[in-house]
């Protein structure tokens, strides 16, 4: 089996254009390879088509919300690690995210370093799709906190 080495691909699912740009800049600066989705439908199609190594998933999305995306991926048995971002920090939501297979939960407004830690943890998690070696020797201090 051929093994390719590349930067970890991270899908950012967020409806806020400012946050999309900020996360793209920060993830790129941290040595990751971000791709974007602005709604749940696009997120699911990009996950299926581009097989990201991790997903940063906002819960509040237009149309299909983040919970539905999580449920769909869980039902499909897709092993992509997901970091859920939510403004709510109650135990019920965290438990719900865990039950649906999320590998991390970050409460908004979040510190970018905490999010990056969660993303790297997700990328390193054993549930990640096998077959591709990733460049994970990345200096986290490259992260640019623009906000």
């Amino acid at each position: 089996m051929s093994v390719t080495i590349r930067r970890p691909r991270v899908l950012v699912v967020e409806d806020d254009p400012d946050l999309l740009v900020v996360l793209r800049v920060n993830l790129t600066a941290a040595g990751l390879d971000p791709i974007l989705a602005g709604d749940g439908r696009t997120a699911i199609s990009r996950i299926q088509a581009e097989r990201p190594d991790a997903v940063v998933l906002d819960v509040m999305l237009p149309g299909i919300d983040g919970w539905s995306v999580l449920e769909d991926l869980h039902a499909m048995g897709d092993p992509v690690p997901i970091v859920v971002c939510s403004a709510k920090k109650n135990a019920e939501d965290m438990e719900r995210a865990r039950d649906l297979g999320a590998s991390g939960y970050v409460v908004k407004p979040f510190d970018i370093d905490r999010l990056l830690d969660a993303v790297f943890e997700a990328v390193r998690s054993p549930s990640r799709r096998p077959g591709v070696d990733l460049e994970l020797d990345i200096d986290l201090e490259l992260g640019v906190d623009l906000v």
Partner: protein
Amino acid sequence: MGSNPTPPAHIPFLSHTASVARGSPSRPIETFGFGADIQGRGEEGERVPRQKDRVPETEGLRHESRVAGLREFRTPSLEAVERRRMQLWFLTTVTLVLVATGVLVLATWTSMGSVVLSAPAIRLGALAIVGIFCAYVVEKEMRLWRVTRMLTDERVLIASLTNRLHEVSLLLETGRALSGLLDLSELLDTVLRSACDLLDANGGSLMVVEGDELVTVSVRGREEALGARIRLGEGVAGHVALRREPILIEGHVDPREFPGLADRQPYVESAMSLPLVHADEVVGVLNVNAAAGRAFTEYDLRAVAVFAEQSASAIANARLFEAERRHVARLIELQHASAAEAG
């Protein structure tokens, strides 16, 4: 994410960013053509490059597109990339078929064919040409794949920005409409109608605070509720007014959670209830019910929260205006009475 605005005090768990009202709940990005011209126009109609053209992502996209063979890069579109991909694979197929046919013809029907093909230099040369061509195709395909990804990202950003612009425009329009109204009953009806329009809701009600009660002053879809009164703290709306927290209702409401909740038909599967707070005072509660088959989400709740803030200010102003008008009318009456007495 430090620059995010602080959420309104009465919706503590909500927005991480500036909230906006919005129109349709879901507008897929496919509705936005990326083939649109990204160049701007100057005052006299001449083309001027926009700021966007100078960002690194666009430069990267420009470079990748040029290398991938998309000449005259001006309006990047996924369709153009797809066309280029089709051309590439067509060219590949034709070339490989021609080479294979040539070799076959040479080997089968010409007397010198087998002799020519048995020469190692010729065989190696043919293999090298095919190998180089395949490498070229693979390299171009990888470039096209990267361009596709970049274009999709750009499309997501454009769609997201367009959505935001649409939402802000709707909110602005609604704000203008509300700020121009001083007649309280007309304003209340407009607030409820605008909320239903913004959320594609099929009904709802608007309640205002009178003493320690909430009075239903405007209704859409369930007219018999008009004039109904509940105490603060009773039912869903009373709970919302007392706690000053919006509530998103999914499925049947548990009466134990909301004491005093009236049993009503038909049941609403998805609804939202928001406090209308102005100057730290609850002026009312806005209730919106989703149409059958549609469920409100936190996204909808966040969107309508800003609208509720504007509405609360407009209602408070209209009430103040009415009170002043009554006061002036009373003063005029008194003036007339004293004039009559003096006369």
